């Protein structure tokens, strides 16, 4: 095997590199011989044997589970809101650097192209609109974010839109309630992942500082918490949250909704992992920063909030994104406990007599969904990282 002295030069004419040395040629040939039949077999399977109708017939189940059909419009509004706010957040982060020149922006053009593509595809009008609208709203939000001074208002915007999303999905306050038992599919996956991520963040930061603290009791408590939760398999933590938590509540209290219990379990575990990441960032901050803050007479709390934390988080942004991806993937464990999230609903679809034995199609499909979201998270974090590095 030949190895680049990394990572300097990689010749653009890569076909030549396949056969530049005898060893490399051998490697390439063997590899091609192994991989070409494999790819053809998969392609033949995908085009002739696979029955993709299982996906089309159950698309509603995969997306929202058994969410009542008459309230689907609420979810559509929620998606639109999410798209708009997400676009605005994205745009305002980019703002000071890149003035809005839509025709020069590649992502904008791709977005428009996809939207146009959907518009001309042969689909039901509702499906077409519900795919097209979010894309256009992301683009609109992006434009707004780049042109208006929104950055300061982002936290408020986040809180308000988070609350309204919850309200739209769950109901109450004038809207018909939808029991959590009826939430499912991608909706439930995204909901649990997002809520547990948001909940785990403050706890994780507290634990990170706790473990760094000079106070022995605080340090010991944080360390034990972090090490125990990191040492246990998540499935065990979820079991405890779902089964033991009710046992720990006073006998007369009503039992918590299982979804809440499970989300708490996820968040508590994620917090332990997050704490270690944040601690890594804290340790990487030069001591001079702390000393400078002290010299200025800054209160310890403000030192943490204004000096240490922002720098630490910036340093560990890729690792944080990694934790978010892990959390997103581990929501699949909820299916073991009877929740109808993306994996759970797919096993329920596979148990339907009409779709027996369609495991490959379904698993590939939901695998692609998981992959797309993980990819999205890592791309956003990369671009945010570049942005932060630039602004330094």
């Amino acid at each position, binding site marked *: 095997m030949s190895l680049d002295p990394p990572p300097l030069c990689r010749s653009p004419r890569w076909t030549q590199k396949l056969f530049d040395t005898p060893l490399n040629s051998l490697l390439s040939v063997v590899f091609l011989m192994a991989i070409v039949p494999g790819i053809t077999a998969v392609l033949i399977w995908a085009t002739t044997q696979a029955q993709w109708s299982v996906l089309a017939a159950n698309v509603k189940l995969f997306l929202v589970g058994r969410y009542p059909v008459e309230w689907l419009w609420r979810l559509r509004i929620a998606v639109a809101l999410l798209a708009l706010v997400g676009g605005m957040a994205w745009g305002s982060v980019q703002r000071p650097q890149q003035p809005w020149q839509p025709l020069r922006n590649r992502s904008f053009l791709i977005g428009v192209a996809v939207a146009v593509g959907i518009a001309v595809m042969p689909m039901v009008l509702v499906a077409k609109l519900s795919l097209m609208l979010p894309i256009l709203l992301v683009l609109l939000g992006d434009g707004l974010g780049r042109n208006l001074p929104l950055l300061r208002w982002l936290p408020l915007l986040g809180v308000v839109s988070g609350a309204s999303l919850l309200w739209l999905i769950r109901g109450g306050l004038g809207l018909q309630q939808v029991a959590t038992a009826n939430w499912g599919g991608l909706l439930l996956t995204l909901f649990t992942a997002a809520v547990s991520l948001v909940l785990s963040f403050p706890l994780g930061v507290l634990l990170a500082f706790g473990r760094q603290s000079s106070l022995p009791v605080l340090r010991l408590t944080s360390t034990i918490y972090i090490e125990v939760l990191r040492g246990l398999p998540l499935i065990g933590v979820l079991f405890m949250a779902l089964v033991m938590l009710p046992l720990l509540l006073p006998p007369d209290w009503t039992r918590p909704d299982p979804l809440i219990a499970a989300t708490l379990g996820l968040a508590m575990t994620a917090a332990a992992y997050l704490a270690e990441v944040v601690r890594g960032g804290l340790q990487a901050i030069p001591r001079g920063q702390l000393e400078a803050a002290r010299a200025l007479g800054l209160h310890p709390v403000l030192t943490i909030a204004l000096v240490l934390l922002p720098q630490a988080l910036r340093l560990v942004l890729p690792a944080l994104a990694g934790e978010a991806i892990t959390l997103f993937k581990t929501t699949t464990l909820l299916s073991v406990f009877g929740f109808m999230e993306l994996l759970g609903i797919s096993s329920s679809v596979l148990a339907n*007599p009409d779709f027996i034995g369609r495991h490959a199609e379904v698993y590939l499909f939901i695998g692609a969904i998981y992959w797309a979201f993980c990819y999205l998270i890592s791309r956003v974090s990369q671009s945010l990282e570049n942005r932060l590095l630039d602004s330094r």
Partner: protein
Amino acid sequence: MLKKVTHLLRCKISRSSPLVAGAIVMLSGVMSCAAANQQQTSTAPSSPIRQLDRVKQRGQLICGTSGKVPGFSFVDPQGQYSGLDVDICRAVAVAVLNDSNKVEFRQLGATQRFTSIQTGSIDVISQMVTVTISRQAAVGVAFGPIVLYDGQGIMVKQRSGITDLASLSGKSICVQTGSTTELNLADQFRKRNIPYQPVVFESRDATFTAYEQGRCDAVTTDRSGLVAQRSKLANPTEHVIFADVLSKEPLAPGVKGGDHQWHSILTWTVNALIQAEEYGITSQNVDQIAASSQDPDVRRFLGVEGNIGDGLGLSHDFARRVIKQVGNYAEIYDRNLGADSPLQIERGPNQLWTKGGLLYSPPFR
């Protein structure tokens, strides 16, 4: 002195307001929690909150069920539940809340069904649970009347040529964990000294998928469950169920032990379904019979006279409402498992005692 302290405190607060404010919020939270707890516990020992009040207050019955087995508990893509287990839940919901739709079904895996009932996360479990002494004594489930007398069966593929237990020697058998069938299987094969390879799964779907894909030579569960699952396989006619019955599997709904009233409600709601069949009262004719019957037993049963439900904390006509909305036992059986269902399972021992079966309701008196 006091002035000085307050002054100091104020200085402290003004200088480190976020910290102190946070501390105060936390402290007051803890204190109010403690106070709330105090309130709760002060009333607790004398009269624990009864499950009935809790359900009424919630306005919804939480019922644990499998959601995976046609005829017993099956949820269609639209989210509609149907089946024998489901109808038992609906009957209890009618008795308590007078609405068969005020039930929240929770799908429970095999491992969660008992822990959920132990912890009070669900009000009723109706999930093909076999009544056993250890479940009553060690796990703490209080069972209602038996709603289905079943037995454990074994299903194999027809072309495998396996016909009885002895020819299963050395073969692999798929079984779901946490079931009595898992334990019976071990016992029965040990008794007969037949070696076998158990392949155990946590979920029912996985168990039957593995069987269908050829991982196992046989699969085992309750016989009616096998019939139901067979209907879900790709080619139901290619699978045969042994004539041998491995064990008694009396299936019953259950509640958490320790709440006598709630257990009685479950017991007598189920009894009412059986008694109604004995009286010949159906959802169609219940109103008519209530209006016209002169039989004091029937009149008492339907709440036209007397107050049979009062002792349970229910209305005196609870049986009538249950039958009106859910039907009697025969109606429930026929539409889910029997003649009016695709499964076409004979009633066998699940006939009334008057017809030579085992169903027998104590008198409503």
